[in-house]
């Protein structure tokens, strides 16, 4: 249906809202319906000191310290940060740099914990079974303390979103069970197996933000999950104003702003947050983690991971402790030889390609995919010139003009790229996916964003240096003036008293001379 007709139909209420653009890649949900299995414990855990968006943590433990599972091992620094916890009981053996999940393949300080095999838990956090009577701020602090960050993959510290703002009261909580990336099924499986826990988490979040209604969003390729959630809701008398919304399967339906638009017809303005339109959005996994933190006093030390990919011998939905290396997790499912295999961290659309499997699982690890090198190469053939077909603009869920933005990024005309709203790009990859010329558009946007950030950093540093330079100049001038003043005062004091007249005379004459010249 032409875009204009669709918009008209939506405006008239004849059609459900749908976000602009989007694509429908092959789903390839190999692990759909497979029960969640526990990934066995390993002898060594590597905990990177930054697993969320924001500032890195500072370690609280020293080499040789004994830790328990759930014990805080690193302190949050700054506001946008959450603490880290030991994934199992054992001994801290070293704190040093180790490669982490990052497209650069660079290293970051990590805490190495040697497990003692006992997996003893730290029970210092009490269970808040009376959460209904507790103040939102108390619960919020618990969510922060337990290190919870958005488990849908963005890992933004969750407590920051859980605020009651007088100016922007939140009406609706959207529970995101969309999982629109191909291959991934962990949210799906969680809804099937732990519907009760997810709903408890949802009730806690709604209590915290004061939301009146809730929507559980599920794509129509997961109708069994929708059925299970509906049934669980029917049994739950507490969540009366919550309903399950089944949305058409379309990528990136699960992206926060797009999902909110699809469900409510409210558009989150550029540079604003969902709470500005009275909505907050949480992933189902995050809701479950919040429930564990509040009801059980359990910090975030494990998460569900879809281990899949076309090169995976035995794909599975695993419950994995944070800090296990990818190599170990893959080995549990029969993959030990990484020859000609490309590892993806996250989904195939937005995930990062990793160079080595020796990096640890972190809070953002929604999926670990092992793909045949050939498959990846086929998906990324050589780039051809742009033929201006406009498919990318039609596919863009943020309604941008990807081909022009990419041109500007490539030619380093960053001001123009920004004028085309480069920073509204969510890097979903829909444009690259539909491009008949195989232009890696998202790569250009990432390049542009990185360069702009770097230029800004350099500019800020230059500005600070200039201020320091000017301040130093002013100080030197002042010191010089003071010195001169002191010198003349000393000279005056040293001069014998009877000569006072002559000094003034001399001064006067010099003054005259100065005036003359």
């Amino acid at each position, binding site marked *: 249906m032409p875009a204009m007709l669709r918009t008209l139909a939506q405006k008239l209420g004849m059609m459900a809202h749908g976000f602009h653009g989007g694509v429908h890649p092959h789903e390839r949900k190999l692990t759909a319906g497979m029960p969640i299995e526990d990934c066995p414990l390993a002898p060594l855990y590597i905990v990177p000191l930054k697993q969320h968006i924001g500032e890195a943590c500072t370690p609280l433990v020293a080499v040789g310290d004994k830790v328990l599972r759930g014990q805080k091992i690193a302190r949050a620094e700054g506001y946008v940060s959450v603490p880290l916890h030991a994934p199992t009981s054992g001994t801290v053996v070293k704190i040093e740099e180790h490669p982490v999940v990052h497209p650069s393949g660079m290293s970051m300080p990590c805490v190495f914990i040697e497990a003692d095999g006992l997996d003893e838990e730290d029970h210092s956090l009490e269970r808040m079974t009376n959460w209904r009577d507790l103040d939102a701020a108390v619960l919020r602090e618990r969510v922060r303390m337990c290190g919870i960050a958005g488990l849908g993959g963005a890992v933004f510290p969750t407590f920051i979103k859980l605020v009651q703002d007088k100016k922007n009261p939140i009406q609706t909580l959207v529970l995101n069970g969309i999982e629109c990336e191909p291959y991934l099924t962990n949210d799906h499986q969680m809804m099937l197996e732990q519907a009760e826990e997810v709903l408890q988490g949802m009730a806690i979040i709604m209590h915290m933000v004061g939301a009146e209604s809730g929507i559980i969003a599920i794509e129509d390729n997961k109708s069994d999950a929708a059925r299970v959630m509906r049934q669980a809701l029917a049994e739950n008398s507490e969540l009366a104003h919550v309903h399950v919304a089944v949305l058409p399967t379309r990528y990136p339906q699960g992206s926060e702003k797009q999902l909110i638009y699809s469900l409510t017809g409210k558009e989150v303005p550029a540079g604003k947050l969902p709470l500005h339109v009275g909505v907050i959005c949480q992933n189902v996994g995050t809701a479950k983690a919040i429930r564990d933190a509040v009801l059980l006093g359990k910090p975030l030390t494990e998460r569900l991971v879809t281990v899949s990919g076309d090169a995976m011998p035995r794909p599975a939905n695993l419950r994995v402790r944070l800090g296990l290396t990818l190599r170990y997790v893959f080995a549990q499912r029969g993959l030990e030889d990484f020859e000609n295999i490309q590892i993806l961290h996250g989904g195939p659309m937005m995930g990062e390609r990793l160079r080595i499997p020796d990096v640890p699982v972190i809070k953002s690890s929604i999926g670990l995919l092992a793909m045949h090198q050939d498959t990846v190469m086929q998906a990324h053939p050589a780039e051809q*010139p742009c033929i201006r077909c406009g498919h990318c603009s039609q596919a863009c869920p943020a309604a941008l003009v990807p081909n022009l933005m990419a*041109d*500007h990024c*490539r*030619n380093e*005309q960053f001001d*123009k790229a920004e004028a085309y709203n480069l920073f509204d790009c969510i890097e979903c990859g829909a444009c690259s996916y539909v491009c008949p010329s195989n232009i890696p558009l998202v790569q250009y946007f990432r390049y542009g964003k990185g360069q702009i950030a770097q230029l800004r950093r350099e500019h800020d540093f230059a500005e600070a240096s200039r201020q320091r330079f000017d301040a130093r100049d002013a100080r030197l001038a002042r010191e010089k003036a003071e010195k001169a003043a002191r010198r003349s005062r000393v000279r005056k004091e040293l001069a014998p008293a009877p000569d006072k007249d002559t000094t003034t005379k001399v001064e006067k004459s010099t003054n005259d001379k100065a005036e003359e010249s």
Partner: protein
Amino acid sequence: MSEVALILLSAVLVNNYVLTKFLGICPFLGTSSKVETAIGMSFAVMFVMTMASTASWLVQQYVLIPLDLLYLQTIFFILIIAALVQFIELMIHKTSPVLYQALGIFLPLITTNCAVLGVAILNVQQDQTFLTSALYGFGAAVGFALVLILFAGLRERLDGAPVPALFKGSPLALITAGMMSLAFMGFSGLVKI
């Protein structure tokens, strides 16, 4: 009223000074590498052209014809244009030093912009009234501004386009200008009298 519309339409599109009369090509190519510069240049030319066509009409009617000095026409007109250009130059230097730098030599060169003198001379040749000559000057300037800004936009886009090395820079600009000119020829059938 229809006369006003006709004059404007004719000056802006049908008889566009740059693309159909081929006057003022120098600043058209020289100041079109960036849209911001092109906009600044357009406003400068708009001011000079409108003022020059009215002033030259006045001089023609009240000085040159009564005193029978028509052979001094060019000198008088150039004097008017030069004074106006100096004036706008001072003004731009004060209000927008960056634009002043960006326009560089092309700002004083408006004096020798043949489109400006062309409009002034054509005006008096066509026996326009005071109002129509002002309107014609303004229309011609708008036409100049229109194609200059369009051209600058095209050049900005082409700046990043993967064209063969042979066509880089000026050749591509000239080809683009030629194609724009062809496109503007389409306007010649716009008005049927």
